């Protein structure tokens, strides 16, 4: 009599992990082999990858489709400036503290906008982001509507040489991307992740099984907000200049992120990674066309949503039964010969 075994990791996922580990070593050494412009581009890629993974966790798993994540990107950026300029904190301490403050702030915000359902929730998050933008534009100590720059002394406190600062900022971006992906992966593999996946598949059934939907969604919202603020701090640490329009830009921090996730494959961990690569590939080849490029991006997102709603990764997964991050359970019926 054979007993079926349940397993998660597959050969493909083990190979993927080994390849990823090697890639990580190569990428971590980038300051020694990459040029200045490439380093900057790769840093930006990792920050977008982090934002995409976070948005994917909210929209793809918790069903919280937000078009207002720029609220927390901008908040993190502004907190970096405020806490270093007025609080005298080290930039990295300031960024971590910004994450904590964002988590605290996101609870009352959630209690308001969670009253809106579905698409109305989306626009509600946008209103919140506008409230943030208009409020920070009123703070004259931070430059009001025209914004402010990070003082040279604070920039120097990171590292004395310019190449040292660029390397540090790159490692922070790489580290945050690895941390976010690992955190989302481990979260989804945990008991709570299972609850979240159940909510994604059917809210009614999940609540019938005793899952507290409101609370699970709140947890996701709070954690995502905190991480998004940290990424926002890192983004503006790279830019060294902040203004309300740049910090709370719906195009830069939400539209692009949504395109990345939709094109790559929403509701999968691999999707945002593929999407980020495709997005930057498109951007680097079409960026000269400006507005046309954005129209192409919008059209691609619409076509993907209509024709292949699971995105590029969804197509690959359905075709080859591939899963690089082993999240689902597989059953193996033991072969009688083995007994």
């Amino acid at each position: 009599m054979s007993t079926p075994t349940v397993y998660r990791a597959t050969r493909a996922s083990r190979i993927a992990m080994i390849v990823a580990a090697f890639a990580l070593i190569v990428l971590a050494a980038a300051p020694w082999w990459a040029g200045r412009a490439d380093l900057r581009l790769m840093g930006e890629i990792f920050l977008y990858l982090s934002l995409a993974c976070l948005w994917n966790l909210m929209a793809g798993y918790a069903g919280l489709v937000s078009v207002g994540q720029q609220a927390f990107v901008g908040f993190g950026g502004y907190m970096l400036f405020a806490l270093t300029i007025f609080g005298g904190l080290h930039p990295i301490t300031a960024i971590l503290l910004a994450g904590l403050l964002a988590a605290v702030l996101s609870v009352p915000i959630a209690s308001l906008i969670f009253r809106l359902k579905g698409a109305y929730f989306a626009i509600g998050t946008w209103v919140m982001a506008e409230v943030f933008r208009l409020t920070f534009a009123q703070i004259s100590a931070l430059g009001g509507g025209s914004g402010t720059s990070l003082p040279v002394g604070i920039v120097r406190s990171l590292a004395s040489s310019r190449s040292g600062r660029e390397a540090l900022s790159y490692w922070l971006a790489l580290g945050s991307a690895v941390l976010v992906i690992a955190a989302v992966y481990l979260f989804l593999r945990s008991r709570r992740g299972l609850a979240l996946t159940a909510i994604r598949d059917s809210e009614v059934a999940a609540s019938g099984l005793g899952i507290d939907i409101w609370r699970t969604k709140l947890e996701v919202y709070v954690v995502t907000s905190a991480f998004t603020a940290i990424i926002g701090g890192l983004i503006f640490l790279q830019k060294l200049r902040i203004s309300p329009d740049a910090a709370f830009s719906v195009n830069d921090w939400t539209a692009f992120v949504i395109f990345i996730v939709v094109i790559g494959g929403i509701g999968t961990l691999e999707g945002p990674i593929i999407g980020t690569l495709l997005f930057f590939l498109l951007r680097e080849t079409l960026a000269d066309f400006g507005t046309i490029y954005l129209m192409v991006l919008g059209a691609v997102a619409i076509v993907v949503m209509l024709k292949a709603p699971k995105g590029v990764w969804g197509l690959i997964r359905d075709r080859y039964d591939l899963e690089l991050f082993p999240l689902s359970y597989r059953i193996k019926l033991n072969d009688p010969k083995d007994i």
Partner: protein
Amino acid sequence: MIEWTGVILQGVLLGGLYALFAAGLSLIFGVMRLVNIAHGDLIILAAYLGLSTTMMFGVHPFAAALLVLPVMAGIGYVLQRGILNQTLGPDILPPLLVTFGLSVIIQNALLEGYSADPQKLSAGAIETASVSVGSLTVGLLPLLTFGVAVAVIASLQWMFYSTALGRGFRAVSDNQDIAQLMGLNKAHVFGLAMALALAVTGIAGILLGIRTSFDPSIGGGRLIFGFEAVIIGGLGNLWGTLAGGVILGVAQTIGAKIDPGWQVLAGHIAFLVVLAVRPNGLFPRVQH
């Protein structure tokens, strides 16, 4: 005192414009549970169509509306049947993301076609004309806008409850499948609803263009004002939407009176207060 009465009156009249932004949004949500993220950009598109029409034929913006409205309605019908109908279903993601993509496309197409320079529709003497009410002076254009808003909402209300088309709208709204079994083609009914919504959007776009200058980037802001009016008034109640627009307009003019930088913020705060106190809006639809 008289000063504040003037401020509030201006807010009420501004609310008429916001109700026009909101009416189309409210209509399509009521009929097919679709929230159109591109709604604000469609308002701006209508304003630019009005601009092109006035320039091309040298006509008054109100005359341009005779062309813009049918064109917007046509765009609405084609958009609904060509793209949006495919997104409708139990999952809220497709309509949301598809209209979001549309919003980006419209915005950048306008940027490509008309550049980022602010434009304005010139309506001649009516822009500065005013009438005196007691000791108050009221601009004729805001008054006219408010009148149009009331007329539009009254006609939508009448159309919804007293015509065969409205019966079709209500039928697919209540139960799509049974409406289909009763011989209504829901794809066509949805197309008509979107056509009607975008015709209203056309009116809103032209009145917006006469009132203030506009550029391709301001669509998102108009969507938010319309959305706030809908939520403040209560989902699915057209007269409530007008009241919501008025409350939003008054909050904004009071905010602007205190500090010009506070105009929009005051409107958002009024919205959040309503959301905190009455999550279903002030005048939610009575369940029949």
